């Protein structure tokens, strides 16, 4: 019996749903976007939209660049020069490429305080602490990894990262963008004040999240309950929209660019629109050691840590944060 019980167990996972308004002083939206550092996939969906505005299109095309460098010695990320050039002059992000966090050593650079505090180290490069850290990275066989890097700054020095790591064959990459429109799309009816839904009147936040996954996975949304292949259908109540715009950006995307996208999507409703809401979803790298800030992220049967905004036309929003088994609770 114990074996049977164990076979039916699944690791725990959490979905946190909250609602607020972008105009509230205490709204956490900006903080939560900015502290989710390693983002792999950003997508948004706009019902009743067939063409993207110029402002949104520009933002989508400017989410990069990011960089890829192979066999970079780890000690290069703690040198005085690196800290002064990048860490102190903007937000620098790094994550080892193709290291599975449940199997391999993984390294991540966070833009602020890290367990080896680079800002603290740089104050005294002759300190025993710095020497010890530097020695441990260089001694005998220097640790080397393939890295994804990104640097957000307000200056005009575009290719500083390229010239700095040129001896390591650094490559500049642009995120991949996929744009499409869906016709006759069944969309759930939502009420911004009803996070849990209202029977017969509005769908709940978890139902919306499932539906969004179905749309971006190209699943059928209108199966009959007795269909042999699939019984999944759009949550009810729902409406059919003539057109919906879908956009997906994949790469190593910095939080600052996501914040700009979020703000632009909020401005979508500055003019009257048919759409009652739009969504913005962000998925983190499965092998990032952190989810939000320094909250631990792990990989059990899956490495999901993602969040989704539903932005309503009255500036209300829903925020859903989802994590898996080996994760700290979302903030």
């Amino acid at each position, binding site marked *: 019996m114990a074996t049977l019980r164990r076979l039916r167990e699944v690791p725990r996972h959490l979905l946190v749903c909250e609602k607020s308004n972008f105009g509230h002083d205490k709204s956490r939206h900006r903080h939560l976007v900015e502290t989710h550092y390693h983002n*792999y996939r950003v997508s948004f969906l706009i019902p009743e939209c067939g063409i993207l505005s110029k402002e949104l299109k520009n933002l989508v095309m400017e989410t990069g660049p990011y960089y890829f460098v192979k066999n970079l010695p780890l000690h290069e990320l703690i040198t005085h020069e690196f800290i002064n050039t990048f860490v102190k002059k903007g937000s620098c992000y790094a994550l080892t490429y193709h290291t599975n966090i449940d199997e391999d050593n993984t390294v991540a650079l966070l833009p602020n305080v890290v367990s080896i505090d680079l800002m603290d180290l740089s104050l005294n490069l002759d300190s025993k602490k710095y020497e010890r850290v530097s020695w441990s990275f260089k001694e005998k066989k220097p640790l080397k990894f393939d890295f994804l890097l990104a640097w957000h700054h307000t200056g005009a020095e575009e290719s500083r990262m390229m010239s700095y790591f040129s001896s390591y064959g650094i490559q500049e990459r642009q995120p991949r963008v996929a744009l499409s429109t869906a016709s006759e799309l069944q969309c759930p009816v939502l009420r911004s004040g009803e996070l849990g839904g209202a029977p017969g009147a509005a769908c709940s936040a978890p139902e919306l999240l499932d539906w969004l996954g179905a749309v*971006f996975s190209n699943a059928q949304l209108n199966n009959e309950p007795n269909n042999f292949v699939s019984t999944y259908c759009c949550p009810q109540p729902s409406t059919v929209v003539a057109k919906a715009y879908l956009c997906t950006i994949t790469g190593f995307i910095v939080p600052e660019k996501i914040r700009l996208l979020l703000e632009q999507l909020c401005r979508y409703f500055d003019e009257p629109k048919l759409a009652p809401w739009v969504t913005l979803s962000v998925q983190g790298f499965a092998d990032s050691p952190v989810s939000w800030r320094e909250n631990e992220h792990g990989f059990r049967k899956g490495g999901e840590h993602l969040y989704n905004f539903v932005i309503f036309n009255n500036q209300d929003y829903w925020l859903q944060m989802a994590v898996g088994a080996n994760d700290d609770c979302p903030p």
Partner: protein
Amino acid sequence: TSRFRRAKQEPNVNIPGVSRAQGVASAGELRALAESCKERDSGRRQVDAALPLDILTYEEKTLSAILRICSSGLVKLWSSLTLLGSYKGKKCAFRVIQVSPFLLALSGNSRELVLD
């Protein structure tokens, strides 16, 4: 603001099927195959085999599918498909790529990012 938490109950499984002999040609066949796996591995007890299973997507080009099953059936489905070695007399293999309770997580897989 208000918040609530919910532990999701329905893991989704992203499975590409490698079928060298073009065994599985449609979502319907995949569904029938998955059902027969469960039936076989539960010792042919019809009651145990009757777990609701949905083939949410099936892509013939890549021979990959997204399956949805309730959480208590995940281990049974996963092990059944893993142990399946042939279909209609021809060798085949299933590889589970991603498992998640959140369907949105299955629309992208950072482990598939290829840069070199």
